């Protein structure tokens, strides 16, 4: 298989004040694949995820060193346009967080502020396409003007994914996107992740081992701020190299 690294992390250290949250993270995330990040709470996996679109910048005491390259370009280089970066790297959070606006406006908001749509017709197309890609169109096409917050949890999460897609990102970061959802809604999101990977590079943080095994091609295991092991998901869940990885995924971690 010909794999192209979309994101490369080089010697990334992250500090929250005096506390070091990530230690020398070196890894590659491949294009058009789903990469899962697993590890116990506080292991640094979400911190790392947020490094990829510089979401940690909004935290005053957070300091980052090292490099994260996207398509070979260091996003922590001085003068990088963070707004442009986040246009390229979308994010979906644990709890669905639609804007208190209509379903239509939830999707149209991004393309509007980023100036992606030239006119109403184009905007309509973007809204429709984004909702279709997020497998939500059929459920909401007749009520686009109703508030997004009126949808079910699973639908809201797909709305958030549609919103992330609407500005044509190349990478989608998902921070435990299914932890607030029931199994059916979870299955729909997982099916969606599967279908999205042909167009996007996806990084997902999850507490569910089974979900990591189901949706990802590669899995990275973090512990106490360090990347312990990263490998093919199949390898990680059948025969991991590291004892600590095995102890964690089999529920032996003491």
């Amino acid at each position, binding site marked *: 298989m010909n794999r192209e690294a979309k994101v490369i992390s080089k010697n990334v250290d992250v500090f929250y004040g005096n506390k070091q949250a990530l230690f020398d993270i070196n890894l590659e995330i491949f294009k058009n694949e789903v990469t899962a990040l697993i590890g116990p709470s506080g292991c640094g996996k979400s911190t790392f995820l947020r490094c990829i679109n510089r979401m940690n910048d909004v935290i005053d005491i957070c300091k980052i060193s090292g490099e994260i390259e996207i398509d070979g370009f260091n996003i922590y280089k001085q003068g990088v346009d963070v707004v442009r970066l986040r246009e390229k790297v979308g994010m979906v959070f644990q709890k669905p967080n639609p804007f208190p606006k209509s379903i239509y406006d939830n999707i149209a908001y991004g393309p509007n502020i980023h100036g992606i749509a030239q006119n109403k017709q184009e905007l309509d197309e973007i809204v429709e396409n984004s909702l279709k890609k997020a497998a939500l169109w059929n459920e909401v096409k007749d009520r686009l003007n109703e508030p997004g917050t009126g949808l079910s949890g699973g639908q809201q999460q797909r709305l958030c994914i549609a919103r992330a897609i609407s500005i044509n990102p190349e990478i989608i970061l998902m921070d435990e996107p299914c932890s607030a959802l029931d199994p059916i809604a979870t299955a729909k999101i997982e099916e969606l992740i599967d279908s999205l990977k042909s167009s996007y590079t996806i990084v997902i943080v999850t507490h569910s081992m*089974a979900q990591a095994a189901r949706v990802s091609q590669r899995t990275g295991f973090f512990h106490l701020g360090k990347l312990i092991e990263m490998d093919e998901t199949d390898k990680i869940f*059948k*025969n991991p190299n590291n004892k*600590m990885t095995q102890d964690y*995924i089999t*529920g*032996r971690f003491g």
Partner: protein
Amino acid sequence: MSDDHIVKSYDEELHIINDAIVQMGSLTESLLEDSMNAITKMDKDSVSKIVESDKKINKFRASIDEQIMTLLVKRSPVAIDLRLAISTLKISQDLERIGDLAKGNAKKILPLPEDDLPPEMLNSMRRLGEAVQKQIKLSLDSYLERSTEKAIQVVKDDEQVNDLTKISIKEVLDFLAKDKKNLEFATNLLFVSKNLERAGDHITRIAENVYYLISGDYPKKNK
């Protein structure tokens, strides 16, 4: 870091499965021994006891299948636990087949004459049986001790079993060549030799699965 699961009942379930394989293995080992004794001593009285032992082995197989199924449903095992579940399932299947073959062999002696059989032929069969018995012991030890070295040795020993099978078959054919009326007996004895070889193949598979359980890979064939 400990080797125990956070959920204690998970460990208990794995221990129960492990113990069941050990018990089933030791029962199969005894059955194989009894079956060989019955053949080499033409002890027809022991056959019914052998048939009963085989039933016990079959029950173990059914119970292990059930326990593995429950484990998969309840625990969604991964890594070493997943490999234990899968390899145990296969090992119990092979043990059951070995039991069937040993029982089948014992039953094959029922129509045979109690003496009159050429001692060379019985000796070659005894040697084959001993090789298979040695092989199953080593195979079960490899499981118990989680030893890849012993598992590899079992795989290597299979060649010897195959060679001894050929010798044993030749002896049976010589016996047949001596007198056409030996045909029925000889056919039965051919089955005995062939069944022992097949038992050896199952034992080899057990060792291969033990190797997989430990290492996550199958032993490379040296061919």
